[in-house]
């Protein structure tokens, strides 16, 4: 991989034909090794259970050839353009335009989000998808507190989502408590479990923290799977009450909301209500994060991400700071979980696999750690993209993987890699992360 280092941006490197050819040959060789067995030999279980296989050397040759030609084209483009530093090539006028756009983007997106049920009232599919996307936006924002702000790599976030979902499911089906009482309880319980996770991992960071949080997520899932008497095990919990509009059920009956308002009943009402519910919850998460970032505790989280030793030297109690980050992140995960349970009406441990944690983490990382707008956009792109490529069927994951790799090459710090300062002085003057490199000299 040619590294576009900053000291070579004055002149295009003189990459001769031999260099390009060698590169392409190496790429083709790697492709050959990689695909020889994956594509070259196809195995299947035969009718009697024996293994049958046949070779597909033609496909293999085509693929390796494509890699070879593609590699030459990429290298030629690279030689032609020189090491591209897009940020430096964008004229100032355009960049100012973009930053103006960003200022309008947030209110515009917000207005659009509020209007989605109005615009797409007839399209149930889009409404359902929007609810799903917003759930992940909320989870992304919640995890962002832990990973993006406090810098604590948490691979078990789904555990808190699960705690929230099961809290609501159990409290409502066992004690008949309403959604609006269970919601804060689910948040509190999830926050409690966040602290439970926080205590043992106080001294860990980086890879070690990631492994322990991963294990924690699995422990919760496996407990849910095996504690038959309480959680129903793999059968999950069904018949979870649907949410009510503050006590008024959204049903067709005479005391339903539609009847009371004197409008004809439609099952879409409930969907619209759920939409606004998750929108409100997500915005609450966002609002809380933005507020907290400007308070000493928020600054302490960010400082903790940067340098724990320096934090202690500044009188910050790192134990409390870490635990609050875990607890708050978990709390929002718990809210989202309670919402998930009431939307689905049925939950089982299957919904809380590691893949969910990975997905939410990917949203945070792709969005740009710590950027609220970036996380929201990444959630839309990831979940929306997943749906968009449903037509590609088996290539869906491939398209997705390629898109993620390209994004990480193009914007290694995520979609919105810059961090808005939380302390303002005379004027706001954010510097894009890709314009300045970190110097420790």
């Amino acid at each position, binding site marked *: 991989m040619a590294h576009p280092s900053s000291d070579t941006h004055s002149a295009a490197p003189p990459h001769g034909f031999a260099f390009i050819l060698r590169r392409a040959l190496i790429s083709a060789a790697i492709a050959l090794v990689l695909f020889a067995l994956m594509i070259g030999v196809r195995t299947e279980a035969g009718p009697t259970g024996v293994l049958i296989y046949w070779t597909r050397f033609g496909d293999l040759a085509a693929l390796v050839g494509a890699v070879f030609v593609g590699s030459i084209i990429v290298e030629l483009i690279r030689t032609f353009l020189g090491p591209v530093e897009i940020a430096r090539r964008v004229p100032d006028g355009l960049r100012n335009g973009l930053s103006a756009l960003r200022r309008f983007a947030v209110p515009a997106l917000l207005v659009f989000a509020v209007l989605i049920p109005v615009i797409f009232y007839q399209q149930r599919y889009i409404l359902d998808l929007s609810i799903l996307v917003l759930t992940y936006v909320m989870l992304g924002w919640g995890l962002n507190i832990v990973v993006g702000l406090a810098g604590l790599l948490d691979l078990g976030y789904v555990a808190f989502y699960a705690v929230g979902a099961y809290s609501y499911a159990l409290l409502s089906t066992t004690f008949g408590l309403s959604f609006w009482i269970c919601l804060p309880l689910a948040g509190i319980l999830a926050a409690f479990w966040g602290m439970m996770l926080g205590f043992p991992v106080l001294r860990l960071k980086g890879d070690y923290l990631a492994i322990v949080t991963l294990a924690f997520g699995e422990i919760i899932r496996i407990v849910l799977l095996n504690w038959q008497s309480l959680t129903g095990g793999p059968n999950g919990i069904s018949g979870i009450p649907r949410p009510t509009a503050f006590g008024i059920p959204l049903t067709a009956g005479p005391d339903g909301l539609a009847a009371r308002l004197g409008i004809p009943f439609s099952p879409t009402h409930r969907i619209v209500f759920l939409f606004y519910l998750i929108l409100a919850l997500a915005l609450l998460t966002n609002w809380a994060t933005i507020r907290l970032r400007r308070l000493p505790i928020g600054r302490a989280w960010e*400082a903790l991400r940067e340098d724990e030793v320096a934090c202690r030297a500044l*009188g*910050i109690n790192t134990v409390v700071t870490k635990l609050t980050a875990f607890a708050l992140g978990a709390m929002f995960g718990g809210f989202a979980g309670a919402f998930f349970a009431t939307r689905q009406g049925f939950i089982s441990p299957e919904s809380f696999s590691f893949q969910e944690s990975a997905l939410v983490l990917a949203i945070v990382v792709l969005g740009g750690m710590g950027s609220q707008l970036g996380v929201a956009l990444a959630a839309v792109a990831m979940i929306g993209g997943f749906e968009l490529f449903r037509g590609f069927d088996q290539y869906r994951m491939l398209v997705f993987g390629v898109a993620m790799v390209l994004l990480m090459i193009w914007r290694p710090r995520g979609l919105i890699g810059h961090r808005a300062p939380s302390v303002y002085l005379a004027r706001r003057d954010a510097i894009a992360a890709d314009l300045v490199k970190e110097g420790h000299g």
Partner: protein
Amino acid sequence: MTDAPAPPLLTIRALRASYGKIAALKGVDLDVRAGEIVALIGANGAGKSTLMMTVFGRPRARDGRIAFDGRDITHLPTHLVARLRIAQAPEGRRIFPRMTVAENLKMGADATEASAADHAVDLERVLGLFPRLKERLTQRGGTLSGGEQQMLAIGRALMMRPRLLMLDEPSLGLAPLITRQIFDAIRTLNRRDGLTVLIVEQNANQALRLAHRGYVMVNGEITLSGEGRELLQRPEIRAAYLEGGRQRA
């Protein structure tokens, strides 16, 4: 200075600390009186930084006693030591690279219970002392030069309204001109505001010129102490730390 010596602000007695089985401090006695600049000099690995860190509780003191303003702080956790307004500009500066200069300074201010108006006054004072930081307030800390980062580390410590400022090798890796600016700033702080400073340095010449008193540390023990200027004249100091090492500034 008045005739009667001021009572010590920081008292260290028979302090021992170790990393595993390796003893780093072997019974150190040291005093810092209010309003004084004290320099602790010594070669690499003598235990100077360890002494500073032990005051902050990491590594823990194995034996001995550390008292600040009459209060025993030997076993106090780091953040509580800091809350007594003992500030440090640690080794390697340890500023917050992704946060802006203004946010870095704010982190120091967060440690105090002073009002927002007081913070503004403190900020003006720090920026007056290090005008280069003023130009860089909205820049991220990681983009500053080494000298500016050191200024930021000291500035951040000053925002804590310290009663004692501890500096660990503020001249490390800096150009002589920048070092002089930083040492001038420390002198100003001491003379104008009566700030008490403990400075750990390898740059013996400049540190001893700046300090009222100095201690020399060798292998985890204090081998010499006295007035700064007087220590500077000692032949053994000259041989060990000046003529053989750095050139006179």
